[in-house]
């Protein structure tokens, strides 16, 4: 029996559909071009907005002349920051910890711009092209101010990126303060490096966009937005725009990729809502690629200054790390700048038994687009630094990269293990991961090939990376990483009068396949076939929840659906028991039937039971409540940890500096998989992004913080020729904390695979005494490194 109070409850669930690679329910609609994405929405009378964006990274706005733009036929309205400020103070973002420096980003800048791409004015016109024509006619006088272009410049505090942020310091944190210096002083081997991770863009192939409609007659505001967090967005709209929350509906249509970039509240969303209300007409805003690269939140820009102390036999003794985040001019909402360095620091010791750690982080304001969430946010840069140094130590101690990791990983007998970075690790299969990776790679034969290649003047390298990942972020997981956020989501499960099942969830999808995976969960929870379940998501008219991010949906979706389904099962068993004259406890639900346990013939179809509950009162026991739907929330009782590892084999072309990835291996342990096909899709997709971020992608700013990479000709996404075939192995260590033992997954590729790619390149070039710590490992960087050392 479900306890309505226990949001952590782990309901028992049978597994019939769970675990099957069922083809996705949503695919036919997408593949025929019939899915509706944000730019496909056309409402009667709809107008089109285009934003004027700052051409300078830091400047005072002296004067704005709108006269020529206003005269352009087709222009309906032009607003500047001052107009928007009449209705909203903008987006204030902070973290509920002491001494956090909150920032308020105006919905549009009015006095001062603080990054290239910040919005200054918006034109609403009869078409997007007319609106864009009008932008060209707006004349603005600026007084340029000095910019803060880098972490190094931010630290000097000679200039401020944002006058709200004293000394450019948004937050400074000491996660672990062990006295590591004596250990470093006496250690037999110390390796260290300063690792410069690149600034990247999540770059979903669909850019951001939203459409707002305000109906003045009843006060209802509808916002269609390509957002991962419709429920949260609705609450923030209510707060920031002073519009009663119950009059707002946020709808997420089909989304063309999110990857975290669409898990923010963007200033443009506030503006588009206000414009629709002002004009009494629907307003659409679809950004172009340049805007997305300029202003769609940036990611991953950290410097990690790390050192590791080892014993002579390769045992890790202590870690020191200082993580600095190049955070941009404002905190993003809801994550803040601390979603990079501070969050990353919590996982810095990873899957290893490192007795002592000194871990600090600082988020620094710079004259750039705010840093935000992107798959694996926070963890990526630190993982690269740590795994690179482990490899370096292995080389210097003459150990294999597998052996040194095996020596140090947390083992089952160590659980629960309180890591030096203050995460309690209760589950995982780290040793098994390393063993599996080693056999997949066939290490002895790789070593032979590497030696042979070297003799021919070719550079082969192997990189490995082992990770664990907090998934299914609930309240306790957020608390463990030092970002106190209350986090749970809600599902409603209904058995319809004809015995089919309708599930509503707050988890929207951007390609993750929830229509299928949640249907698999609900089908098993109620003993019906998957094709008798429909999953409704995408509107705040459904149940409330924070949204889809941080590998939450599988865990919290399953937990909430299983808890709600259990409440419905109780009713079904109650009435079936009454009709069959047995105890409700003897009733089972399976194969679309409700019958006496062990006697499948003594029972009836789900449709018959549901029909009786809805339409045949004579079948009801006394005082029977015929509600056949239930709503339940789930918040995991603790951090749910998935784990795994990656290995890459690369060849570096010494003449061109080009890296060819020959083979890629992934081991993933996400407990019980709901749909292995979808799990593997997430693994491959994450690894492709990892190859992009470690070899190709880089948002480059000039000395005035002007972004130089604003097209896909300059910002290089990996193509089908850059991503190899990926061999995947699954381990399955079910979590005791989630119904069905399901763990979250999806981010591992971007957490851990970059470290494997970089490790492989460094392994290939180690024979030339090259150890690269600035990323991405572009051909230029590798070529320059090869030319700076002797043959």
């Amino acid at each position, binding site marked *: 029996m479900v306890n309505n109070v226990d949001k952590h409850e782990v309901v028992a669930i049978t597994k019939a559909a769970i675990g099957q690679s069922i083809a996705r329910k949503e695919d036919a609609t997408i*593949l025929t071009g019939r899915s509706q994405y944000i730019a496909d929405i056309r409402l009667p009378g709809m107008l089109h907005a285009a934003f004027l964006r700052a051409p300078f990274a830091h400047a005072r706005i002296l004067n704005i002349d709108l006269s020529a733009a206003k005269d352009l036929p087709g222009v309906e309205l032009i607003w500047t920051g001052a107009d928007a400020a009449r209705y909203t103070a903008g987006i204030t973002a902070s973290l509920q910890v002491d001494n956090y420096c909150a920032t308020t980003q105006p919905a549009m800048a009015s006095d001062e711009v603080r990054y290239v791409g910040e919005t200054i004015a918006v034109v609403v016109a009869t078409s997007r092209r007319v609106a864009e024509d009008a932008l060209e006619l707006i004349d603005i006088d600026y007084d340029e101010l000095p910019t803060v272009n880098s972490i190094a410049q931010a630290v000097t505090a000679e200039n401020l990126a944002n006058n709200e942020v004293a000394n450019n310091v948004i937050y400074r944190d000491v996660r672990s303060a062990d006295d590591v210096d004596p250990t470093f002083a006496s250690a037999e081997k110390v390796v260290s490096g300063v690792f410069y991770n690149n600034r990247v863009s999540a770059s979903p192939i669909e850019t951001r966009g939203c459409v707002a409609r305000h109906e003045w007659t009843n006060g209802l505001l509808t916002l269609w937005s390509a957002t991962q967090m419709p429920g949260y967005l609705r609450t923030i709209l209510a707060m920031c725009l002073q519009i009663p929350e119950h009059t707002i509906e946020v709808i997420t249509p089909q989304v063309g990729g999110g990857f975290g970039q669409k898990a923010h509240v963007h200033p443009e969303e506030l503006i588009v809502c206000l414009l629709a209300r002002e004009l009494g007409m629907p307003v659409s805003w679809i950004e172009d690629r340049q805007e997305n690269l300029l202003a769609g939140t940036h990611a991953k820009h950290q410097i990690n200054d790390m050192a590791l102390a080892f014993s002579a036999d390769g045992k890790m003794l202590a870690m020191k790390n200082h993580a600095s985040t190049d955070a941009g001019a404002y905190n993003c909402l809801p994550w803040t700048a601390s979603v990079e360095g501070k969050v990353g620091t919590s996982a810095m010791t990873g899957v290893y038994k490192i007795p002592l750690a000194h871990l600090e982080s600082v988020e620094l304001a710079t004259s750039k687009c705010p840093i935000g969430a992107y798959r694996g946010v926070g963890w990526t840069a630190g993982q690269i630094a740590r795994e690179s140094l482990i490899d370096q130590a292995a080389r210097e101690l003459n150990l294999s990269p597998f052996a040194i990791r095996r020596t140090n990983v947390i083992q089952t007998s160590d659980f629960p293990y309180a890591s030096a970075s203050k995460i309690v690790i209760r589950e995982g299969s780290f040793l098994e991961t390393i063993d599996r990776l080693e056999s997949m790679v066939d290490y002895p034969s790789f070593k032979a090939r590497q030696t042979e290649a070297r003799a021919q003047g070719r550079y082969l390298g192997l990189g490995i990376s082992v990770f664990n990942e907090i998934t299914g972020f609930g309240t306790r997981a957020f608390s463990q990483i030092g970002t106190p956020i209350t986090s749970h989501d809600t599902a409603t499960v209904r058995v319809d009068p004809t015995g089919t099942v309708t599930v509503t969830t707050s988890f929207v999808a951007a390609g993750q396949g929830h229509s299928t995976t949640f249907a698999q969960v609900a089908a098993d929870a109620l003993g019906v076939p998957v094709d008798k379940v429909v999953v409704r998501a995408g509107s705040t008219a459904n149940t409330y929840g924070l949204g889809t991010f941080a590998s939450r949906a599988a865990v919290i979706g399953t937990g909430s659906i299983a808890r709600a389904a259990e409440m419905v099962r109780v009713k079904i068993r109650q009435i079936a028991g009454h009709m069959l004259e047995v105890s409700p406890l003897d009733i089972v639900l399976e194969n679309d039937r409700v019958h006496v346990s062990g006697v499948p013939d003594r029972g009836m179809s789900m449709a018959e039971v549901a029909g009786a509950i809805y339409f045949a009162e004579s079948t009801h026991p006394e005082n029977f409540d015929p509600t056949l739907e239930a709503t339940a929330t789930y918040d995991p009782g603790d951090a749910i940890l998935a784990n795994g590892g990656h290995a890459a084999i690369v060849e570096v072309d010494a003449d061109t500096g080009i890296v060819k990835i020959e083979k890629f291996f992934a081991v993933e342990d996400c407990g019980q998989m709901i749909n292995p096909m979808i799990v593997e899709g997430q693994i491959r997709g994450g690894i492709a992004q990892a190859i992009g971020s470690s070899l190709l992608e880089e948002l480059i700013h000039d000395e005035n913080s002007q972004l130089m990479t604003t097209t896909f000709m300059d910002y290089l996404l990996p193509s*089908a020729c850059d991503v190899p075939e990926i061999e995947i192995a699954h381990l399955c260590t079910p979590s005791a904390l989630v119904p069905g033992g399901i763990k979250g997954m999806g981010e591992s590729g971007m957490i851990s695979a970059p470290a494997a790619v970089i490790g492989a390149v460094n392994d290939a070039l180690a024979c030339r005494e090259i150890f690269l710590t600035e990323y991405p490992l572009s051909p230029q960087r590798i070529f320059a490194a090869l030319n700076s050392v002797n043959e």
Partner: protein
Amino acid sequence: MKKTAVDELLLVNTTVNGRAYSFAIEPRISLADTLRYELGLTGTKVGCEHGVCGACTVLVDGEPMRSCLMLGVQAEGRTIQTVEGLASGLKLHPLQESFKRHHALQCGFCSAGMLATALALLRDNPTPTRTEVREIISGNLCRCTGYETIVDAICDTQVAEFMRGEQRG
């Protein structure tokens, strides 16, 4: 050559998915926007509007073209196939079925362009190697799948059989 004002409407006669269309549009409107907003065929997606991502790829006289780099007026006299023209009636094209079977899509934003590129390839060569497929689709960016399952879907034997039948047919 006659100079045309930016807002002057030009008449275009074209065939899209087997249906004849006649409409008047501004000469500056891309073929992608023409298909999406003049003809309501929003299955063609726009990802970068500068010819790199390939999401907007359609078949123009059988050849894969970036519809963001062509103008709508250049559709004059051409025969165009978009993703909406792929299924017959209520039956998915075997290539669409294969994409579904192999999980060759996640968010689906690149799928229309990917299908167009793949279809043009398979009409020339029903049994391409995996390397050939990777080279041909390297102009279509996918941010979700890692490409491998897309290659699987295009190299599927049922697809090859169907395409060979079409060649003979």
